[in-house]
C-alpha cells in the first residue's frame, strides 16, 4: 500500500532520515516507536508530503506520489499537536474541511458522536484544552473514511474514556482492512492494538517485525518487555 524507498532528509547538520526503506500493507496496524528526535514525525510528515525528502521515492498503491499529490485524499492524519486557526470554532473547522475536501456525504461520524463534540461546536479553537484539540484532530482524521490512517501520538493528552474510545476505533478500522500507522512512546498502550512494530533510531530503522514473531523471538509475553529485550540484543551497549 505504502512503500518508502531510500528516503533521506537532512535538517542542517541533523540527519533526520537516513535512507529509509519501508513497506506497509493494508489490514495491518503498525506502531512506530523510538526515542525522542529519532525521526518518527519526520517520516510521517514525509509520507504526508509536508516535509519534502532530499532523495528517495514514495509509492502509494504502486504509484510514485512525490510529484502528484492526489493520494492525500486517501489519508487521514492526526497530528501530535494539532494547530488550528485560532479564531475559528470547532463547527467552522469541521465544515470548512468538509467543504474544501468537497466531501459532505458518507461521513464517519462515530467518533464525533462518541466524543460529544456536538455540544462544543461553538467553542473557539484557542479556548480548547489539549485533549479537546486532540479529539477534534481524531474526528477529522477518521471522518472521511480514508484507506490509510496516520496517527501521531494519538492518545497523548486524552482522558482515559476518550482514549479507550479511540483505541476501540483503531482496532475496528484495522479489521476493516485499512492501514493504520501509530507512533507512541507508551508501549503498554499498544498491547492488543498493533500487528507490526517498527523501531527507529537516529533516522534509521532498527527493526520492523510482526508482533507475534517479536514475542516468540524474545520469549516474553508483554510487548514492552519483548521490545526492550530485543533492542538490547540489537544495540551494542
Amino acid at each position, binding site marked *: 500500500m505504502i512503500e518508502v524507498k531510500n528516503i533521506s532528509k537532512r535538517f542542517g547538520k541533523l540527519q533526520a532520515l537516513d535512507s529509509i526503506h519501508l513497506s506497509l500493507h493494508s489490514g495491518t496496524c503498525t506502531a512506530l516507536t523510538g526515542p525522542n528526535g529519532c525521526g518518527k514525525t519526520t517520516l510521517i*510528515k514525509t509520507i504526508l508530503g*509536508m516535509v519534502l525528502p532530499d532523495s528517495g521515492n514514495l509509492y502509494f498503491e504502486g504509484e510514485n506520489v512525490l510529484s502528484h499529490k*492526489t493520494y492525500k*485524499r486517501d489519508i487521514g492524519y492526526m497530528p501530535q499537536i494539532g*494547530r*488550528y486557526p485560532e479564531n475559528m470554532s470547532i463547527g467552522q473547522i469541521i465544515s470548512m*474541511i468538509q467543504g474544501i475536501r468537497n466531501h459532505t456525504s458518507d461521513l464517519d461520524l462515530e467518533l464525533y458522536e462518541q466524543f460529544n463534540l456536538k455540544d462544543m461546536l461553538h467553542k473557539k479553537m484557542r479556548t480548547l484544552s489539549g485533549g479537546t484539540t486532540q479529539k477534534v484532530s481524531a474526528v477529522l482524521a477518521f471522518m472521511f473514511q480514508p484507506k490509510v490512517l496516520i496517527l501521531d501520538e494519538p492518545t497523548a493528552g486524552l482522558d482515559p474514556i476518550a482514549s479507550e474510545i479511540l483505541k476501540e476505533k483503531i482496532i475496528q478500522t484495522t479489521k476493516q482492512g485499512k492501514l493504520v500507522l501509530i507512533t507512541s512512546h507508551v508501549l503498554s498502550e499498544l498491547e492488543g492494538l498493533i500487528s507490526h512494530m517498527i523501531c527507529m533510531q537516529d533516522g534509521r530503522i532498527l527493526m520492523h517485525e510482526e508482533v507475534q514473531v517479536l514475542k516468540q523471538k524474545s520469549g516474553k509475553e508483554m510487548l514492552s518487555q519483548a521490545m526492550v529485550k530485543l533492542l538490547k540484543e540489537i544495540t551494542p551497549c
Partner: protein
Amino acid sequence: MLRVLKYVSLDILKNKIVVVYAVMLALFAWSAFGLEDNTSKGTLTALNLILLTVPLMSVLFSTIYIYNSSEFIELLVSHPVKRSVIWQSLFAGLSISLALAFILGAGIPILIFVSLRSALIMILSGILLSVIFVAIAFLSSVLTRDKARGIGISILLWLYFTLLFDGMILFLFFRFSEYPIENTAVFLTALSPVDLCRILILLHLDVAAMLGYTGAIFKDTFGSFWGLLVSFFLLLLWIFVPYVWSLYKFRKKDL
C-alpha cells in the same frame, strides 16, 4: 481553488481591518479633495496618499496575515489540497480585498474630482501597487520562518521603494546634472514600482508641464501609448516575479 479562496476571503472580511482601511482611505481622499480650493492640489495630496499609504498597508497587512495563517496552511497541507492552490488562494484573497478597499475608499472620490483619463491611470496604479506589494509581502514571508524578521524585511523593502530609491535617483540627478543622463534615468525608474507609478500619474496631470527637460524626455517615453503599455507591462512584471519566486519557495518548504 475557489473553495479555499472562499474561506480566505471570509476570514479577511471577518478581520475587519481591510474595511477600516477602506474607510480611512475614503476619509483621506474626500478631505484632500474637499479642503483644497483647486483640484490639482487635491490630486497631488491624493497621489502621495496612493504612493505611500497603499504600499505600506498592503505589504504590512499581507506579511502579518501570512504568518498568522501558518496554522491554516498546515491544516490544509495535511488534507488533499495542492500547495500551489493554497498559495494562490491566499494571494488572490489578499489582493482582491486590498484592491477592492482601494477602489471603494479612494477610487470613488478620485473618479469624481479628477478628469477621467488621469483618474483611470491613478486608480489602475493604485490597484497595481496594492497587488505588487502583496506579492513582495509573500516573498519576504516565505524567505524566513522568523516572524519579526519577515515583517522587518517587508518594512525595509517598503522604505527602500518609497523613500530610499527616490532619494538615490535624486542624488544621481544632482551629481550628474552636467551629463545627458535622461535615458539612464528613464531606465532606472523602471527598477522601482513606486517611482514608475509616480511618473505615470504625474505625466497625466497638468503639473507635468513644470518638469523641465527631463520631464520632456519622460513625457516622450511614458506619455505615448507604447510607453504606457510598456510601463504597465513592467508593473505586471513586478507582481509576477516576486509572486512566482515565492510560490517556488513555498512548494519546496518543509512545514
